[in-house]
């Protein structure tokens, strides 16, 4: 008959897998409070790493944000998310109206950056900027981020636009709404959730991107957090543990929040 309780090997397997996934992450957080500069030996509890982190001129430059790695990473993530959310949403609305040939062609081209390995996208963008003689900087990084984020917005928003009832928009036109007003007041509110989901993907992709940013901007000395981590890999600074822990806490908070939200929804269904 069917087993109701999980067997011992199953539980051991799950525990081992989750230790494998989480032990490194927990160790990063623990060693961010280490008194010694070592990442291997524990010598006492301190908040010094956090103080050092927020006074680090390279990561946080309060007087000149253009020189600050953390601010510039956030800035590029925000701008590229905004631009890709707008471009992707407008394209998704347009695609539901175009001819099938154009739609299929756009979708296949749209899939190229999603399917191909990052390193190939990175080389192709590097060649583009080289041919146009655009010097590597935060600007090329921003353009590259828009290029790889927008396809994700489009594939997230498009199915939602396709599922909309066209009669609702038609009703708005019949009642005298201009096309722009119909878009703003009727179509966008219906696809809001999908746009936010697409924007969340775009933001994380930009914030965490390494390979593409490194190729298109790495040689200029303009760094995002990933390039900073990578170029410091051989001389691991303990402040990186503090920075990582802060990022972990923010992401952990967001995930816990999502968990309780879905949990409440499940209970409503039950």
């Amino acid at each position, binding site marked *: 008959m069917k087993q109701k309780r*999980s067997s011992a090997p199953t539980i051991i*397997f*799950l525990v081992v*897998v*989750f230790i494998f*996934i*989480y032990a490194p*992450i927990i*160790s*990063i957080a623990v060693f961010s409070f280490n008194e010694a500069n070592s990442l*291997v030996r524990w010598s006492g509890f301190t908040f010094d790493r956090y103080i050092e982190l927020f006074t680090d001129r390279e990561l946080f430059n309060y007087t000149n944000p253009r020189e600050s790695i953390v601010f510039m990473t956030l800035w590029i993530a925000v701008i590229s998310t905004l631009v890709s959310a707008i*471009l*992707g949403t407008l*394209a998704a*609305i*347009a695609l539901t*109206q175009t001819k099938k040939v154009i739609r299929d062609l*756009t979708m296949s*081209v*749209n899939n190229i950056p999603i*399917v*191909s*390995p*990052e390193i*190939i996208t990175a*080389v*192709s*963008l*590097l*060649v*583009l900027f080289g*041919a*146009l003689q655009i010097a590597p900087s935060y600007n090329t990084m921003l*353009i*590259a981020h*828009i*290029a790889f984020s*927008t396809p994700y917005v489009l594939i997230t928003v498009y199915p939602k636009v396709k599922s909309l009832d066209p009669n609702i928009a038609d009703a708005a*036109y*019949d009642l005298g709404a201009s*096309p*722009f007003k*119909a*878009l703003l007041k009727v179509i966008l509110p219906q696809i809001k959730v999908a746009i936010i989901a697409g924007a969340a993907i775009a933001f994380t992709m930009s*914030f*965490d991107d*390494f390979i593409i940013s490194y*190729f298109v901007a790495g040689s200029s000395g303009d760094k995002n957090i990933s390039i900073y*981590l*990578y170029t410091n*890999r*051989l001389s691991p600074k303990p402040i*990186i543990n503090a920075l*990582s822990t802060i*990022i972990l806490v923010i992401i952990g908070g*967001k*995930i816990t929040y999502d*968990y309780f939200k879905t*949990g409440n929804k*499940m209970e409503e269904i039950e």
Partner: protein
Amino acid sequence: MVVQNHDQKKVKPKKKFELTLGVPYYFVLIVLVVIPIFLMIISSFQLDHTSGIFPISFTFEHYLDFLKASTFVNSMATSLWIAAATTIVTLIIGYPLAYILTKLKPRLQISLLLLINAPMWINMLLRVRALEQIMRMFFPYLIDSIPGVVIGLVYVYLPFMVLPIFAVLSKIDTSLLESASDLGANRFKTILKVVVPLSLSGVLSGILMVFLPAATTIIIPQYLAPSHNIYMIGTLIEKSIINNGLISYASAIAIVLSLVILGIVYYIKKLDKYKGVNRNEAEAF
């Protein structure tokens, strides 16, 4: 008639307006996706270190170089072999994990799925650095070894294997399993003859989602094999561009790599002979 004319007038400007909304994105796609690919192909036939916006030259040098120089062939072979090992290990861990998840109560299932997903939202460099720290503490002999690199890749890409398999397994109709046991199949046989074939499409997309990024990784060998005794294709491209500025040479590598990947994707897609099982679902959408 009057009403119909009225309707057509209303519909036309609306459609025209919505069609123009796509124009900015078509422009982005052409400039930032299509043109770069063509430029990369052109670049791969150019000599490096020529100046000008469009240096006109034509050479097979880079491609011929791949046949002569052992660096390219070796790093390609290492990458493919490491990626294959990674895919097999993630499959061995990921399949049972996904299967166990489908058997749990909904609330626990959601929590564990979230816990498996959560690391994907964290910067990959942070996670690999964390793993490096653990390895140096407890398993220093894994640093600079192929098993160490494979463990690193499994650590990063395991969720990509679990999620698609879980997605197909959780959709399998339980009545199929009951009928298998009613017809006399034992548990092992049911899994082998019913569950595995039905989940094949999930397994294949998991394989693609792990194999491709694993074969083209830069980060993991740099952190877990810092003495460069394990030379993967990503490292070769990185070194050519960042250290030596050989953009055309790197373009040629990227193109050969794309062709190899396309071949692998085509072959794996062909393996999906059971895709008929999910056809009903595709039609439903």
